[in-house]
């Protein structure tokens, strides 16, 4: 069997299942509508995120000290606790050290010039390093905040040493 040369005429052949021009217009129209809808959806998502941020701000969630195992007491946070620059203090330089392996963090504390001020450096399991200045006079005695409690312990430790 030999090879036959197929010759076509000048006209474009009509293939089955090919969209006609009117159908293509319909497709573009639907696409335009979808794009519009998508834009609105994005705006809605952005709105939800802003709301989440507001909730976070109110509750104190995600703020400083919200690392593993550290509960944030948002009201005390503003009064007694302030974020400061990390000094990279060693254990030897610290007045008090707390190693919380099961909670995933370490705390180092050093009493600053005035006795009520404690510099606290926190290192978290994920590698974050944060530092706080705690004014222990403003910390409520029954505080459940790990960093505030640690600052109070640091001051108490110094007082005990002075008594001995």
């Amino acid at each position, binding site marked *: 069997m030999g090879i036959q040369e197929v010759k076509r005429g000048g006209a474009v052949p009509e293939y089955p299942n090919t969209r006609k021009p009117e159908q293509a217009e319909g497709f573009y129209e639907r696409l335009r509508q979808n794009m519009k809808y998508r834009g609105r959806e994005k705006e809605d998502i952005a709105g939800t995120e802003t709301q989440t941020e507001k909730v976070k701000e109110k509750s104190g969630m995600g703020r400083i000290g919200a690392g593993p195992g550290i509960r944030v007491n948002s009201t005390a946070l503003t009064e007694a606790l302030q974020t400061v620059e990390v000094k990279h203090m*060693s*254990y*030897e330089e*610290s007045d008090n*050290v*707390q*190693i919380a*392996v*099961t909670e*995933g963090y*370490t705390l*180092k504390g050093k009493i600053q010039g005035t006795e009520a001020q404690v510099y606290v450096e926190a*290192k978290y*399991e*994920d*590698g974050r*390093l944060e530092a706080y200045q705690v004014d222990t006079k403003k910390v409520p005695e029954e505080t459940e905040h790990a960093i505030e409690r640690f600052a109070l312990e640091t001051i108490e430790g110094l007082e005990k040493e002075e008594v001995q």
Partner: protein
Amino acid sequence: MEQRWNYLVEEYQSMLYRIAFSNMKNRADAEDAVQEAFLRYMKDEKPIQNKEHEKAWLIRTTIHICLDILKSGWYQRTVPWNESFASATQNIYLPYQVKDDRTLEAVLRLPVHYRNPIYLFYYEDYTIHEIAGVLNEKEATIKTRLRRGREEVKKILTEGRP
């Protein structure tokens, strides 16, 4: 030479001893491992770039020596004079007061791939970046080992399993 030796001993002996002790669990073997690390450092002719490099080199070598001793046929055929885990916390001579001895005991019971990152991170205050350099691992690996090691410590403390 003697001056260099004195400097090494003064600067790193305590820290290296603690790391060796956390692996060997007895004083004599830990001291042997540290001495061997110092000897290798003195014999090694590779240039040391800076102090951090020197420290990392010494820690890495000490850990390798400990692991070599633990794997050696001689060590596996003999019964080491293991001090109990309770006395281990007293023998480790940390430069600060450890309030929770039970946790340190649990850390010392961990398998080696969890024990060294956890010990260096929490008890020697190393950063994840530094530990990755010392142990020749990726930072992500160290983070995973810290997380999994912490879970293992919890299990040891709650279930009391070795």
